[in-house]
């Protein structure tokens, strides 16, 4: 019998092969996909997030853990769909117009995925129109925007304004992040939240969407 804690432990260590193997075994043994997800993968990523916040883990460790999670999800996802399990919410995320830097955004995206969200990654240099279109056509609950340069930061403001104009601003919560961004800037441009790092982004997203 696969111990779900063992999946979590291997995920924390970033042992991708082992995590995929254990996930497959667990499914074969008839353990509920939902349980594997929550008690194995998400539980493991939670620990990774905590260690990251405490500076005990750094970006590389988070990424290897996320890579292991991704591998396991490929096996698990069809089963989750079969059994009708829904992701907790859909989030659209992207680096704003004028900016091509995406390492921070990718990290946030992986942490959110690790917490059970479904992510629509819009990539880099994302125009306000693209954000709006995604909010309109997909059932997105939260929009995440990232910028690395002080010069491209204002694209966050113009995206929020464009969302207002298009009448979709109230449909979603908006969260922003990136090296030059601050809580003060989030307040100034009317974003709902700001996160200084990838681990806090998960907490912030849950707080904004009232998810326990």
């Amino acid at each position, binding site marked *: 019998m696969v111990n779900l804690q063992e999946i979590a432990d291997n995920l924390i260590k970033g042992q991708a092969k082992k995590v995929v193997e254990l996930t497959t075994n667990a499914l074969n043994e008839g353990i509920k996909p939902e349980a594997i997800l929550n008690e194995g993968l998400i539980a493991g990523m939670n620990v990774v997030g905590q260690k990251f916040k405490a500076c005990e883990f*750094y970006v*590389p*460790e988070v990424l290897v853990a996320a890579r292991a999670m991704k591998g396991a999800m490929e096996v698990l996802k069809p089963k989750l769909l079969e059994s009708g399990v829904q992701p907790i919410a859909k989030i659209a995320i992207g680096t704003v117009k004028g900016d091509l830097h995406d390492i921070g955004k990718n990290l946030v995206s992986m942490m959110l995925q690790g917490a059970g969200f479904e992510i629509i990654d819009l990539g880099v240099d994302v125009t306000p129109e693209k954000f709006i279109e995604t909010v309109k056509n997909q059932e997105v609950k939260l929009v995440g925007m990232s910028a690395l340069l002080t010069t491209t930061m204002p694209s966050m403001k113009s995206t929020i304004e464009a969302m207002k104009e298009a009448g979709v601003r109230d449909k979603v919560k908006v969260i922003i992040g990136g090296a030059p961004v601050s809580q003060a800037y989030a307040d100034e441009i009317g974003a709902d939240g700001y996160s200084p790092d990838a681990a806090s982004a998960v907490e912030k997203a849950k707080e904004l969407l009232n998810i326990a």
Partner: protein
Amino acid sequence: MNKYKIKFQPYDKTFEIEEGRDILSFAIENGINIPSICNGEKLCGKCIIKILEGNVPPTHIETKFFSDIEIKDGLRLACKTKVRDNISILVLNEEEVESIKILTTGLETPVTPKNEIKKIQIKFNKPSLDNLKPYSECLLQSLPEEYNNLSISFNLLKDMSSILDKDNENYFLVIKDGEILNIETQEQKNYGLAFDIGTTTIVGLLVDLDTGKTVKVASRTNPQVVAGADVITRINYSINENDGLTKLQKLVISAINEIINELCINMNYDSNNIYSIALAGNAVMNHLLLGVNPKSMAFAPYVPVYHFISDIKAKNLSLNINPSASVYILPNISGFVGGDIVALILAHKLLETEKITLGIDIGTNGEIVVGSKKRLLCCATAAGPAFEGGHITFGMRAANGAIDSVSIEGDKILYHVIGNVNPKGICGTGLIDLIAALLEVGIIDETGRIVSPDEIDSVALPFKNRIRENGSQYEFVLVFKEEIKNGNDIVLKQQDVRELQLAKGAISAGYSVLLSELGLEEKDIDEVLIAGAFGSYIKKESAMRIGLLPKISLDKVKSIGNSSSIGAKQYLVSDIKRKESIEIVKNTEYIELCLRPDFQEKFMDSMIF
């Protein structure tokens, strides 16, 4: 109005000063000499003073200009400091202000100078009642036959009659590209100027155009630093401030002119006799110098406005040399790989050799070039300010009081302090040494974690007492305050190691991507050239230990110093080198790392030690 007491040290002079008055103008009025270049325009950053007593909160500009430690240490700018307390200040002498290490020279490589200025001696017959021709006619008539198609520059025309009215018959005409630029009453040496326009520092070389040798060197801090330390904040300033672009252009030109004056005064040379100047700088620096809007480089796709720009004359930029002098700007390859890298490729002939060369300029923006004459690639990577001491708890620039090297020998930890004073912080080279040493004894593990005292091996035992708990993490005490006369503990915190991992990961991932694009590995590199001040003072072993440099044999790694100024000099003295630079721009492929899916992967791998 309230009055306060102000005491100036080391002069031991006390005055009464009105509330809110700035210290610089007050000092000048009272005969106290505080060095300042911009006369209190709050631009030059030279009027550094130290607050010894009294409360003086730093201004916004000062917090940008100084590091946190320097602020804590009481350093302020006299022009910014308004008196609102009884205070005592120390006026720093120029040597102390200039103690910040500036690298002015670089490794010279052979170049054949070809002087394009011709000077010919003439006998001049003044206009007279027997010769009722204008000066210009008389001058052209005095020329030997082979020079019958020359024109006279407009600038010379303005002053020509007074020069030629001297009681002198013999003159030297200065000719370039079919134009008479100047008339010298005595033949002067042929000097030109080569500049490295760095984001932080500007270096100028007075160059003998006949021999290609440097005659004299001078440098200044780039006064644009008041508008921000890195190129992106400078661009932001040019966008957001009124006349921001013009202000930044004026600042850099004023610093260049000061350097020109210093060089010429030292050599007793009239700067009006200088007919050519070459300048190398990154793309943002050369755009700002020319007053070209740099905005496009701060937004994707981050392209510059031009590769090449020619036909600029000194008068277009208000440079204090002959107004008709040619201004040569080293071309840009891309928005973040500019003239300074072209200078490196030019001076070290990377496009002429079979050898696989890796050239790196380590700075806030790391610029990297890899390859050989077969194929040469370049990229730029955002390393952040860690190597300059930025974002590091006890980080500081390489100035007096900075620990610039560290080593562990047996049971002792040894360090060197710049200026042989009490240590105040640690600069980039010291940080790399320290982390390399701690990796070696296992106090930092390969993931970058500072381990707990219970996890260490016997080699690290002598330093067990230096590993201190801080929340859920550990930190390493490099200097206990009890070990020095006065001052504070100097500590390496966990997040400092993380900052360094980001910086070195960015550089190493940059060259890894270029190598894999070429189908090569680290071991295939024949030579590593490290440019810039940081590269010159860095300990190669430590840089390799932390993974900033590829792990190859030490003798393949060479510090080339300020290659930007050397390249600019070659561009100045040789038209062949100028033509070569066209080839360099054409044949060096720029790789945008943001568009490389393998960059992120390599960045992650490169962060590990």
